[in-house]
Every structure is written in structure tokens, then in C-alpha cells.
């Protein structure tokens, strides 16, 4: 017998020796929660600030001005974007704009000062941004290697809790959950922000989208 058949056979034997009653999972925890816009916004901003992310709110028409200002403030010169990002978002930006391509080797992404992307869903209660590899978010390496990630979140994409956010995901897409910049508490449990992922996370929340 090969390993597969052996292991599956053992699992069946185990369950025959110690049968398990069928289990009904009751999901009495909070699901399908809605919160008014201002509350979701306040909650999200509170969480993001707690994680030491930089947060800005603006309207859709202010997108390019806000992004240009943030990028200038960060001292960025070369800014990467995924191929499917709305170019008008960066119409006020005067530095170099580098559109990502799948054949760019990952180490070259380190030469970008920052990367600007959209996002798929965001959970307010935990301050978690979900990226799913769509064309306006790019491949995973793009939001991982550069040291600064500027992420645009629309308030309509913000859910109250985790179940409401998970519901909006497409399971088969490579999905990254981001809750603040990378961090470690491995040395005497003292929190250090910025280990391997981007050390700076900037979140721009568009309140009328």
C-alpha cells in the first residue's frame, strides 16, 4: 500500500475504533453586521492608528492630490503601480511612475521607493486590509518588497467585522491580509515595527466611494 492509502486507511480505522457523533456547527457569533458609514470609518481609523499605520481620508476627487502629497511627504521618487491601477489617481504626481510587469525580478522591486495600490475589502473592527491580486492590486511581490505601501481603501469596501469581509472574498485568489506594518515581538516581547514587509503602511480612505 502506498502512503496515501495507508494514511487514509488509518484515519478510517481510527474513526471505526472511536466513532464520532455528527456535529452540528451553530454559528451564533455576530455575522451579517452592518454599521453606518461614520461608525465604520471611526472604527477603522482607530484600529489603523493603533497599528501605527499613517491614515488620511479624502473624497474621490481629491485622490490624486492626496496621493501626490503623501508620496512627497514620504520623500518618494520612484513609485511602482500595478498595471491595472487607475492612472488618474497619480495625475498630480510628478516623480517616476513604474508600471509593474510579471517578468520584473523581485529584487528589482526593492529599487522602488513606494508602491501605490487599491484593495479588495477592509475589516473595520480589526483594521485589516485584504488584497486579492486583482489588476489594481498587482501580484503579491509588488506590495511586499518595497519599503512603503500606500493603499487606497473606499469606504464602501469597509465591513464591520471579519465574517462580513470574508464573505466578499474569492477563495481561489491569492489573498493577503494586512493589519498594520510588519512587526515582531520576538525579543523580550518588545514590539518592533517593520521587519520584512513594508516598514511604512499608508492608508488613504475615500469617504464618498
Amino acid at each position, binding site marked *: 500500500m502506498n502512503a496515501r492509502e*495507508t494514511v487514509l486507511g488509518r484515519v478510517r480505522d481510527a474513526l471505526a475504533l472511536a466513532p464520532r457523533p455528527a456535529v452540528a456547527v451553530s454559528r451564533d457569533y455576530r455575522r451579517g453586521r452592518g454599521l453606518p458609514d461614520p461608525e465604520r470609518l471611526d472604527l477603522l481609523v482607530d484600529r489603523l492608528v493603533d497599528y501605527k499605520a499613517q491614515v488620511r481620508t479624502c473624497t474621490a476627487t481629491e485622490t490624486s492630490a492626496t496621493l501626490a502629497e503623501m508620496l512627497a511627504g514620504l520623500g518618494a521618487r520612484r513609485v511602482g503601480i500595478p498595471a491595472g491601477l487607475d492612472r488618474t489617481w497619480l495625475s498630480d504626481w510628478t516623480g517616476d511612475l513604474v508600471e509593474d510587469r510579471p517578468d520584473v525580478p523581485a529584487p528589482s522591486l526593492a529599487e522602488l521607493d513606494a508602491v501605490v495600490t487599491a484593495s479588495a475589502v477592509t475589516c473595520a473592527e480589526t483594521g485589516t486590509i485584504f488584497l486579492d491580486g486583482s489588476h489594481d492590486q498587482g501580484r503579491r511581490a509588488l506590495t511586499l518588497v518595497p519599503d512603503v505601501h500606500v493603499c487606497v481603501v473606499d469606504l464602501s469596501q469597509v465591513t464591520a467585522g471579519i465574517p462580513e469581509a470574508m464573505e466578499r472574498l474569492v477563495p481561489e485568489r491569492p489573498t493577503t491580509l494586512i493589519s498594520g*506594518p510588519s512587526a515582531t515581538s520576538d525579543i523580550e516581547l518588545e514590539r518592533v515595527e517593520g*521587519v520584512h514587509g513594508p516598514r511604512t503602511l499608508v492608508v488613504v480612505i475615500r469617504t464618498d466611494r
Partner: protein
Amino acid sequence: MSSTFLGMPAAPPRSPYGAGNLRGERTFPEAAAHELGNDQLRANLHRATRTIRAKRLAVTAELPDWEELRAAGAAVKNEAMGRLPELLEQLEAKVTEAGGTVHWARDAAEANALVTELVAATGSREVIKVKSMATQEIGLNEHLESQGITAHETDLAELIVQLADDRPSHILVPAIHRNREEIRRIFLERIPGVDPGLDSVPAELAAAARAYLREKFMSVPVAVSGANFGIAETGTLSVVESEGNGRMCLTLPRTLITVMGIEKVLPRYADLEVFLQLLPRSSTGERMNPYTTLWTGVTPGDGPQDFHLVLLDNGRTAALADPIGREALNCIRCSACLNVCPVYERVGGHAYGSTYPGPIGAVLTPQLAGTHAAKNDPNASLPYASTLCGACYDACPVKIDIPSLLVELRHQTTERTGRSAERLAMKAAAAVMGRPKLYTTAQRAAAIGRIAAGRDGKISHLPPPLGGWTESRDITAPPRRTFRAWYASQEGRDALAAAAAEHPADTEMPEEER
């Protein structure tokens, strides 16, 4: 394709003796006595566990539906264990459909050989690793080393442990036993080209690790990971982490090899909504960990283009065949039970001799690797590494009744070995807790009651210091599986109160029990 079940079921085997890291060299009381001599260790542990405890309590209290989430988490895990054959086959089919390759490993040796072969096929002599308890359990790094392949741990704490030729001592913070000055010295000695003026400030130490590992992330073409959850319905795997080393390993290399215990499978994608709330809050005491990666097979143009999933048994099916012990398989490795355990806090993780320390280790290790009476097996002493105070059960996000499992394991060990269980229990408790206090006396009464009971379930004789207490009465033993219920019942309370009243707080252990 599913094989049909024929004939009598056979008891599945434990993890083979002597392979991997599921057994220490000394019994728990011996190892604990040694660790207790290390004041630095105790100070580090005390500070660390106290800090995490406070954070966990704050973020779990914040959720009004915490108990409902725990109940759902426990139910999903129980459901998954009962449906394991079909879920594993479904997971395999989905991963394969999405462009991955699934392998099965009966034990540590088979898993190690499989991974070695897969790495060799890439031509690389190096792999980068993201923290995985399963690969620590099977001793993968040591095996790869023996085959001329260098494994680089990339989690900061794992890196510290690896550079120091040390062993992890905590599930979540494996270098919890090291302080900053020790870490500075380890880095100065072991990281090539590190700045000789390196400071012991944690931020600087983390920066030194970042610089060292960056080059590995960018150049090593193979990664080995574990997985927190594997979703049968979609074939999705997940790694929950903080530092971004996980994202690096799961994204940049050409080849990704994930080693996952078969008990990590969950039925549905939607089940993640429960565990992604339970795990970070119980583990680091955060509302959410900084990064979680979810991936399904291979995505063209994004991440590793060659993906292998190794499904590992190594004693898990043996645990599954134990109607009581199998509950230990529900563990999601959050480490909350370690952080609340008075025994762990005093002795640290090394005393348990296994990859899995603390209360969960005391039940899971003997389940996976067994206890061999003939070999004076250190694992036989693990179920006694507890005062049965119950704090672990209260903290566990999937409601594993660890005290009941410990009592059951003690019972099984005594039945099989005929060894004086109460002596072991007292030795372990005495070694760790110092002077026995009233509450340990009372709890021992309960625990010993379960063990000393004969076939009729009545206790007619108890060892000293409780011996005199039973001569005048028969106590009903706490029945199997319901230790906690007994403990909370009027009968239990009465028995404990009686024990306490007759054996005042200053009762000393008889000399030979120390």
C-alpha cells in the same frame, strides 16, 4: 478515488520511537528540576507570560460574542475530525485541480525523505523556512543538513534559536527564554559580516536580522512552510504571521513545499471567519496579526509556480483512535494555555522535551508518540506536568478540556505500567511548585481519586498525605471524561473541601516524595 473499508480496524501506530522531536532525554521532574536552576529563564518567562496574558484578556473581553466564537471553533474542529477521510480527499482534489501536487507521509522519516527529494529536484542546496511546528516535530532541518541542504529559519525567534544551536521553548515566541543581551552576543558570533558595534536594542537586533535574511529571500529558490489551516472545500492554505518572513517565503521562491499535519484541515472557507478571530486574539493578544497569506495551488504570474503539499500523519491517526485523547488534535497552536500555566511559567518549554510544550504538549506529545513503559519513557511523566488548576481550559479558544485529558492519560499510563502514579504526580508537582499548597493538595485529591479508583469506580485507599482521609470513607471517583464536571459539582466541592479541611495549608510532602 476512495478505498473501501474492509475487515477489522487496526489501531493506528504512534510516531516511531526515536525519530523527530517528540521525546526528551529526561523525565519531566528531572528536566524541570534542572530548568528551575536558571533564574534568568524564570525571570524572562514570568515577564513574557504576564504581558501576553494581560493583552489576551483585553482583546478577548472586547468581543461580545467570544464564547460563541469558541463554541463554533470547537464544533468546526470536531466536525472536521469526524469527516477527516472525505475532507482530506477533497483537499487533495482541490489542491491538485489548482495546479499543486499532494504527497502523503506516514511518519517523520517519510516526510523528511519526501521534502529532501523535492528540494534536490530543484537543484538548490538551500531552503528558506517559515516557522512550522510540523517540520520541527519531524526534525526536518537536521535531516536536510545531513543531506547537505542548508535550511534557513526566517522567523526572528527561530533564527535566534537556530543560530544558537538551541531548541524552541514556546510555540509562539520560541526564543522567549533569551534576553536581548544574549541575542546580541548570538548575532555577533553567528551572523557573517554583522556590525561589531551592534547594540542590544530590539529594533537594532531586528534590523540586523532583516539585513541578513533579505539576501536569502531574494536568492533562495525553495521555501518550506507549515500551514495553520487547509480548506477542503477550496484547497486554500493559510499561514498566519507577524514579521512578513512568511509572505516572503510564500511569495518569492519558485518552489514552495508546505508540510501540514492532517488534523489542520477545515471543511469550509467560511470557517476561516471563526479561526481568524480566535487565533490572533488568543495568541499574541492582538485584534489581528499583521499578515495572513491565503493561497490556493498555483497562480500564474504570482508567487511560486511549483507547489507541493505534504500531508503528515506521524501519530495523528493514533491520537484520533483515542475517544478522549483525540480532542488534543483540535489544537490551533495559539499558545494561550502555555501563557496561563503556572507550571510552564516556572520551568519553560525545554522541560517538556518535545516540540509541543506546556499543557497542550503534555497531552499531545504522549498522544502522538506514545508512552513506553519498558523504556522508562520521559513522555510517561508528561501527564503529571500539571497541577490541574484548569486555567488552560478556560483560555483555550477551541475549548480543549486539557485537565480531563491529563487525568485520562494518567489513568492510561498507570493501567499500562502499573507504576505508582501518585508518586509521579507528586514528584512533578513538588519539583515545580515548591512547597505544596492547600490548593494543590485538594486538586491532587481529585486527580488521584480518578487514578486510584478500582474497577468499581470507588476509591478505598489513597496514598499519603491523603491516606488517612479515605480509610474512614469511600469516595466515588470522578468518572471518565467528566473531571471538570465533577470538579464543579457539589460532590466534587464537598470532597475537595473535606480534603482541604483535613490537610491544612502547611501540610508538607512526605520526604520521599520530593
